[in-house]
């Protein structure tokens, strides 16, 4: 099986040519249930993971729920202390 280069979460990654999204998640040992996937800027529905093939040069985003939001604090302390 030939390999190809894709962009995964902003990084170049070498994977099997024509691998499905399900195959990719298994290869990466990522649990399907809690992730969402975008292929070339389009959200892929979970029920299409099995049948959606990835091709050379494709760009994927694999995201999940993480803590928080914005992590910048205020620069100026007006009241109270840390």
């Amino acid at each position, binding site marked *: 099986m030939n390999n190809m280069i894709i962009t995964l979460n902003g990084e170049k990654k070498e994977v099997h040519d024509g691998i499905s999204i399900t195959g990719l998640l298994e290869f990466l040992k990522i649990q399907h249930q809690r992730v969402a996937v975008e292929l070339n800027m389009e959200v892929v529905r979970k029920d299409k993971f099995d049948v959606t093939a990835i091709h050379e040069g494709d760009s994927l985003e694999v*995201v999940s729920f993480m803590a928080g939001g914005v992590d910048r*604090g205020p620069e100026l302390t007006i009241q109270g202390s840390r």
Partner: protein
Amino acid sequence: MTDDRLIIAGIEFQSRLWVGTGKYKDFAETKKAIEVSGTDVVTVSVRRVNIIDKSKENLLDYIDPKKYKILPNTAGCYTAKDAIRTAMLAAEAGITKLVKLEVIGDDRTLFPDNEATLEAARVLVKEGLIVLPYTSDDPIMAKKLVDIGCPAVMPLAAPIGSGLGIRNPYNIRIIMETAKVPIIVDAGVGTASDVALAMELGCDAVLLNTAIAGAKDPIAMAEAMKYGVLGGRLAYKAGRIPKKLYATASSPLEGMIGN
């Protein structure tokens, strides 16, 4: 207070205190603070899965989506396009159709870009998401968001993480009167009296993160916030006395000695 339920888009919320999950020391502290706060709504961000280091623990191992309503946010998005992408991904993750829409306009104030927020909200409502938008304390903006189908609006009290409390209670009052949907004060509260004030004004809920996570003792502050919300809500329902310039005696004047 048994029949004082908050319902948004058919979803019943048990708690009027909603909390974020950022800035805690670790997941154990996050979990404890959330438990102590008595909330049933926690906000989470949508971020890239760490491909390299999969050993990292996942927040959802600590926060059970069966026990808590997960409210994904679009924090960190600076354009309508990014916010739409993020919200659509959040919805496809399959836990909820709720999204807290944030489109930030400036990284120093973290004030929302209202124009972009409205644009993104319009698209996401059409896509069937339940869009709860973070907005400035602007009654006109709140009305526009409601008109395009947002079932609640989330005006800021003050800049995110600032702890300044409600800077413009009069605007919040006007928003409540004109928007006619649940109003959730989001961002900028610092301590229990700030959330009590929000509830006394008649707001339906308060969402906060830094005020708990950044406190010297986050667990104790989580408990303080719980009672701040409860006290403020009860006071609002009870109906406070009007403010007057002069005294009104509490004791009767009849029967005083020496008369």
